[in-house]
């Protein structure tokens, strides 16, 4: 790391309660993992917002390009048979 800076950018995910998925809540700057965890607790959970924290270096996240890049998600649109509504069920059949 360079000499005077604001640290590395980390992305923070919080689990509201056991059984729920972790959700992105924001990001923060810190110099190492421990500091990132301390800061995440101070910054994002002062009001019982959750009981689980995940932190990832922003640089380590692999993300798709923007929503403008429609072609990337194109293949899923023409495979309508992935959705239950694609299939016909005879009248009177239940619980399927």
């Amino acid at each position, binding site marked *: *790391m360079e*000499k*005077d800076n*604001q*640290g590395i*950018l980390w992305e923070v995910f919080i689990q509201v309660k056991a059984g729920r998925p972790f959700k992105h809540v924001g990001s923060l*700057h810190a110099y*190492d993992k421990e500091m990132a965890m301390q800061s995440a607790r101070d910054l994002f959970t002062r009001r019982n917002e959750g009981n689980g924290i995940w932190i990832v270096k922003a640089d380590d996240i692999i993300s798709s390009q923007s929503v403008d890049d429609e072609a990337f998600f194109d293949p899923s649109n023409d495979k309508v048979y992935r959705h239950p509504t694609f299939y016909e069920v005879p009248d009177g059949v239940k619980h399927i």
Partner: protein
Amino acid sequence: MEDAKKLEAFQAKIDADIKIEPKDWMPEKYRQTLIRQISQHAHSEVIGMQPEGNWLTRAPSLRSKKILMAKIQDEAGHGLYLYCAAETLGVKREQFLEWLHEGKAKYSSVFNYPTLTWADIGAIGWLVDGAAIVNQVSLQGTSYGPYSRAMVKICMEESFHQRQGYEIMVTLANGTDEQKEMAQDALNRWWWPSIMMFGPHDADSAHSNQSLKWKIKRESNDELRQKFIDKTVEQGLHIGLTFPDPDLKWNEEKGHYDFGAIDWDEFWNVVKGYGAGNKKRLAHHKEAHEVGSWVREAAIAYANKKNNIQKSA
């Protein structure tokens, strides 16, 4: 040609209320406007800690001291949310601080006024935070995703701030004659700066039209100002205080309060750096940053050392 097409698609997204995310294409002016606005907002949260910090050691009870600490801690957090939102636009945190220290970036002028008495802490919470909340509630609907998400979190946390300020005003207004006078004096001094927080009138606002079209702002300066005045006047009258504006009266026909002319010379004077506290606020921020440099250096050295140990192990 390509840009015109992109611009059209961009506007179509905005019109359909689809949020813009960091990696999406955006017009350069949209990006620049957001960089200016979000960083200014972040600086305001952080500089805003100073006038309140002034009363921390002299809060009249342990209860009020704890509350004020919690509020100031919130402001620091809000600054951090906003810096992170601004950084998604491709500017580094170090750069934002540099622009602030060089005077190239602004913060809300209202924080250049001094906090002379404990009642000012009440007036700040009630009026300054009150005005900020009106603005921020509206900004939850802003078109830029990271800014909008920061606003939602901030609004959730900020809801106690205005009540703590109002509670101080209520207590003083129900106290001795001297205390009531303190409350009235604070209201007299903070009322106009608060309603100036919404910025120039729509007709004179340099950035307003384009910002509304791009849904960076959802309501105009004058609309937000009117909302704040309509909400706040009743709260003041309820506790027996008066407002320092002889033209302030309910307009039955419009369903709004009429109010007097705003002293824009005063506003621009403070914006341009000649307010009571401009120099002090900025100098304090710079000093804190410089004095704190050893902490950053130590943290970097520690992180490097641990990385090296991990590598050699």
